[in-house]
């Protein structure tokens, strides 16, 4: 007879694996932690995308013992340049620059390729005793005192809590009957990795082009990851172009600063949208990461938000378990929801306003936002506040994001 029932996490991407690891560290070996995801059989990961890991998330990975493995493959963002331009502008006036450190020696963010991070998380989780099952959660049935989770391999687990970490199109969220509200943007993000002639020196660029932001995010070596926003129709057209034609579109937007540019992989397009789940919890169920919310990537906050969920849920669970409280019960989950839901809504509204403000050709709007950015740039305290918010260090911060162990 174990004192506490275990936890099943449906979904083995960043959020699911990071939560499993955090729980394992906080709860010790007696409480079973199981991650179920068919994608766990595809190791090493082949995810071509890269992600900006802001300082707070880096601290979390550090505390979880994952950062060490990733650090040599991570490119620190040492500087950030924001410009506001029309496509045909010859020069791009710089309105906002960030010196890239939030503390001496701690960069604002790092760029890491997803596959490195996923592999490091999975490896570390396994070593810590997390049970990784390469199968899906197919159904579950919650009662007042527990939930019975059925996996694709036929096994049934009697757990205290099921965590839905199965992404934006979460099946578990759907099964729980939790609706979402939000909207689709008529925009898509084109993602491609490029090689360029000159060193980026760790500088990230974000150009607010009329169709939406065009971000150049530095990777290790003379490589960068591009996130390039277009209307959905235009994005579909661009990714279907021949290599030579795509190259012309790329050059036109990439600018001259880094010299000759060359795509290293096939560009892929991802539809952009915004939604928030109407509830982050259900009976013996908690939603984290993209299963709970998807925001516009304009401020690079998607992963950051997911890891904030991880840190908050892990803290709430571990604190309850250390008091002997059944951590899957309603009041414990409610504490998680109260902590995260307001922050999520606020971030959703903020990123939406940013997108409306910047994905626009109106001259008036352009003047207003440029004056705004100019003011921010000249007021160090305000700029610092923005940087700290963007780095995930604003609001009531969970312990893991402060780099403290649970």
């Amino acid at each position, binding site marked *: *007879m*174990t*004192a*506490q*029932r275990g936890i099943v996490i449906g979904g083995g991407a960043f959020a699911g694996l990071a939560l499993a690891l955090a729980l394992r560290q906080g*709860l*010790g070996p*007696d*409480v079973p932690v199981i991650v179920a995801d068919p994608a766990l059989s595809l190791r090493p990961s082949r995810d071509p995308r890269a992600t900006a890991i802001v300082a707070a998330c880096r601290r979390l990975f550090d505390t979880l013992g994952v950062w060490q493995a990733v650090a040599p493959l991570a490119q620190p963002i040492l500087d950030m340049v924001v410009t506001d331009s029309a496509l045909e502008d010859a020069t791009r006036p710089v309105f906002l620059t960030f010196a890239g450190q939030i503390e001496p020696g701690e960069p604002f963010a790092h760029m890491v390729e997803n596959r490195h991070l996923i592999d490091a998380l999975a490896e570390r989780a396994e070593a810590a005793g997390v049970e990784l099952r390469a199968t899906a959660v197919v159904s579950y049935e919650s009662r*007042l*005192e527990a939930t019975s989770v059925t996996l694709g391999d036929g096994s049934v687990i009697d757990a205290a809590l099921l965590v839905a970490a199965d992404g934006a199109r979460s099946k578990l969220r759907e099964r729980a009957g939790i609706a979402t509200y939000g909207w689709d943007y008529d925009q898509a993000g084109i993602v491609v990795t490029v090689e360029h002639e000159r060193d980026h020196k760790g500088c990230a660029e974000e150009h607010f082009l009329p169709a939406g932001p065009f971000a150049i995010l530095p990777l290790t070596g003379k490589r960068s990851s591009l996130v390039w926003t277009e209307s959905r129709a235009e994005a579909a057209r661009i990714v279907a172009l021949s290599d030579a034609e795509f190259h012309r579109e790329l050059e036109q937007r990439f600018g001259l600063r880094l010299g000759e540019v060359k795509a290293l992989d096939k560009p892929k397009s991802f539809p952009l949208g915004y939604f928030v789940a109407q509830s982050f919890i259900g009976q013996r169920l908690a939603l984290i990461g993209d299963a709970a919310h998807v925001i516009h990537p304009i401020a690079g906050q998607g992963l950051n938000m997911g890891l904030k969920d991880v840190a908050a849920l892990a803290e709430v669970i571990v604190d*309850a*378990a*250390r*008091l*002997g*409280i*059944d951590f899957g*019960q*309603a*009041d414990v989950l*409610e504490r998680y929801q109260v902590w995260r839901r307001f922050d999520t809504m606020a971030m959703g509204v903020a990123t939406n306003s940013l997108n409306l403000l910047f994905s626009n050709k109106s001259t008036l709007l352009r003047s207003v936002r440029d004056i705004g950015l100019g003011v921010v740039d000249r007021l160090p305290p305000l700029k610092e506040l923005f940087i700290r918010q963007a780095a995930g260090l604003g609001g009531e911060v969970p312990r893991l994001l402060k780099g403290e162990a649970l």
Partner: protein
Amino acid sequence: MSMQSDSPNVSSANASSATVDPAEIAKFSKLSAQWWDPTGKMAPLHKINPLRLSFIRDAACRKFERNAKSLNCLSGLRMIDIGCGAGLLCEPFTRLGAQVIGVDPSATNIAAAKLHAEKSQLLIDYRCTTVEQMDPRERFDIVLAMEVIEHVTDVGAFLARCAAITKPGGLMVVATLNRNWKSFALAIVGAEYVMRWLPRGTHQWDKFVTPDELTKHLHNSKLAVTEQAGLVYNPLADKWSLSADMDVNYMVVAETAVAS
């Protein structure tokens, strides 16, 4: 805020060993669900419970030199909760490894507690009895008298019995309500009439006990107070926290002299 010994409002069928029929079980099961619903009638108790649990756990971990971060921090310790209700303290401390005995004079409470412990897959020794009726030779490392002394007729005699079953080198934790104008305003008028957290008539203000009186009673039973704290409610944050303010709800840790 404090608990009536057999809330939520179910008349107590007192200690009897009659065989239980299905209708009775249904009633206990409903009562048990009410007790354990953190959003229902007992929500105020669930709100304050983590604070009581952490206060007791931390006192015990200091005393018995345990790591409060371990999920087994109370393993091997024998503990009794007097006036245990449906087991809101018994279950958590059992999970933390303690060997817990819960006693309550209300047979319905004990039945509700047993039903819930079974669902939680926890082994807890629940007994429908009072500390006065227990075998006087029983001994415990930790004795809990949480929100009960304001309901007993002779506080001195009750605490003497509690002291007698506390092992030498053991701990006793008492929670109760202070007696002053503020506790009248908050615990009687506020909790019973304004917020309706508790049924009216749950408490009689004149039975509340001041910290000085409690300390004296404990001293008479050869127990020394080693720690005390108030519990204060912040209505804006809807949160309870520990405080030096012991004007209304407060808790006290007392230790027996080590046998020489």
